[in-house]
């Protein structure tokens, strides 16, 4: 047995280095960001202005129009990922674990995941080249039109990251107990029935988790849009999502002065939104799903 005093001292020694770096460079900056959003730094120094930055962000005509637009675009960006990426990931995972493959299963799994190992800079450029009217595959400037620009970028993201839901759902599916599936098969159930009637209900918690992770990842999105457009927000602000809006707010861009306090405000709004959605999901949905599948 370990003596309590030894345990406490060892715990401290073992955990402290990891905890210090994690708190200092991940948790603390987030907290300072929230704190900063309550202040205004002007020529006359820094002053506490309460929710002033938030009121400005939500109501100042020009800034708020950009903000709501970016928020709305971000929901579209998320919706396209959920509607396309997750069903395809589920289909691939179902095919990989359907029992018809043998040795080739691992090879398919690896090959299908390869695009997710590329950097967005590369993905953006590959696709910009392929849909370039010069190459003649698509005769229409998909990225130059305000109706098609965001869906096009979203689909590039889907192409890159479809392997992630695939791998998640794949891991969930291979954990489904074999005897349940075997019993259903002996009873003459079709693979279709086995999947929707037995396997899918059992992996619902993981399915829900990948939806919520996709929410967090898409609301953290920035790289792909930046790789394609720089910090410019696309035709008529149609590809401006929260990440690019945040970047322009604190970094500044042509025609926009950098504003750190307002940037911190935007960050806090995004953070609050993620926190609320994630918390609501875990309290309301995930608990029930876990209870059902247990």
């Amino acid at each position, binding site marked *: 047995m*370990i003596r309590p005093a*030894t*345990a*406490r001292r*060892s*715990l401290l020694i*073992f*955990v402290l280095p*990891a*905890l210090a*770096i*994690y708190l*200092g*460079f*991940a*948790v603390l*900056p*987030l907290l300072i*960001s929230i704190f*900063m959003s309550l202040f205004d730094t002007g020529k006359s120094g820094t002053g506490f202005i309460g929710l002033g930055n938030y009121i400005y962000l939500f109501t100042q005509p020009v800034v708020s129009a950009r903000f709501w637009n970016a928020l709305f675009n971000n929901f579209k960006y998320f919706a396209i990922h959920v509607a396309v990426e997750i069903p*395809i990931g589920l289909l*691939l995972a179902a*095919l990989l*674990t*359907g*029992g*018809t*493959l*043998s040795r080739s299963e691992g090879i*398919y799994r*690896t*090959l*299908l995941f*390869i695009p*997710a*190992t590329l*950097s*967005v*800079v590369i993905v953006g*450029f*590959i696709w910009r080249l392929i849909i370039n009217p010069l*190459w003649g595959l698509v005769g229409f400037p998909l990225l130059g039109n305000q109706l098609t620009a965001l869906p096009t970028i979203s689909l590039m993201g889907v*192409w890159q990251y*479809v392997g*992630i839901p695939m*791998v*998640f759902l794949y*891991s*969930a599916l*291979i*954990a489904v107990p*074999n005897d349940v599936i075997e019993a259903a098969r002996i009873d003459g159930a079709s*693979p279709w029935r086995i999947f929707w009637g037995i396997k899918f209900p059992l992996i619902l918690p993981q399915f829900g*988790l990948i939806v919520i*992770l996709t929410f*967090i990842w898409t*609301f953290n999105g920035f*790289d792909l849009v930046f*790789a394609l457009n720089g910090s410019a927000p696309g035709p008529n602000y149609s590809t401006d999502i929260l990440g690019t809006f945040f970047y322009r707010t604190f970094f500044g861009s042509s025609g926009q002065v950098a504003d750190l306090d307002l940037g911190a405000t935007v960050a*806090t709004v995004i953070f609050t939104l993620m926190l609320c959605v994630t918390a609501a999901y875990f309290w309301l949905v995930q608990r029930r799903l876990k209870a059902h599948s247990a």
Partner: protein
Amino acid sequence: MTTMTTELAHESRLTRERRRWNVERIAVHAVLLAFVALALGPILIVILNSLKTTPAIFGGPFALPTAETFSLAGYERVLTRGNFLLNYRNSLIVTLASVVLTVGLSTLAAFALVEYRVRFVPLLAGLFIVGVMLPIRLGTIPLIQIMIGLKLMDTLWALILVYTAMSIPLGVTLMMTYFRTVPTELKEAARVDGASEFRTFSIILPLVRPGLAAVATVTMLPIWNDLWFPLILAPGKANQTVTLGVQQFVGQFLNDYPALLAALTLGALPLVVLFTIFSRQFIRGLSAGYGK
């Protein structure tokens, strides 16, 4: 290890059943092959065209390079004109240092969190687990000020510290699942023999080796491919990583297609190769790390 046993059961199911070619099986292969073509086609087109001359890239983008159209001029220009080797070195230093720090510190922390039943342990463990989902980019503005304060702005250390902080939660969460599988008898035996806590830790370390590989592979990918922090914390020419370097190169050499395609190929290659080798550990790490 639950993921390992399910994987083994799954594999034995695969080998037990003898399979014949039938309509269903052909259909499954056809669909999967179509998706593989969709996933790899664009990448192959880029690699293929990086080996051709400019007229050939536009004359027949889907043709294989022939004796007349084959050219390595793009690669030559990238390696001489760009800062590619320097970028590679920076990415390598940042990624390796962050991964080594993450693996080391997370393993120590996870061992203690599993091992010691002290009052604050569940709270501490929870703090790390919540961090897996923490959007650390949203703390960028204070991070810039912290880095300026520490005089680390525009250095590789700024990136290493941020990436380590970003990866530690996933590392700790993952390693805790691996440490839980180590039999208690083993640790107790070591302690009875008078081993110190650190000695006990190093005795059971070999048993969690698959976990170390999983943490390393899962954290490596987002670090190597990140664009946000290099852009903001280390944008200077001397400290650019490959991802940022390629991004800038694309902006500068807009019309030099052979060089662009060569740059993209060189930028992508290391991780694609690494992933292909370690895909098993990676996939296990990904699903176990987020699935808790």
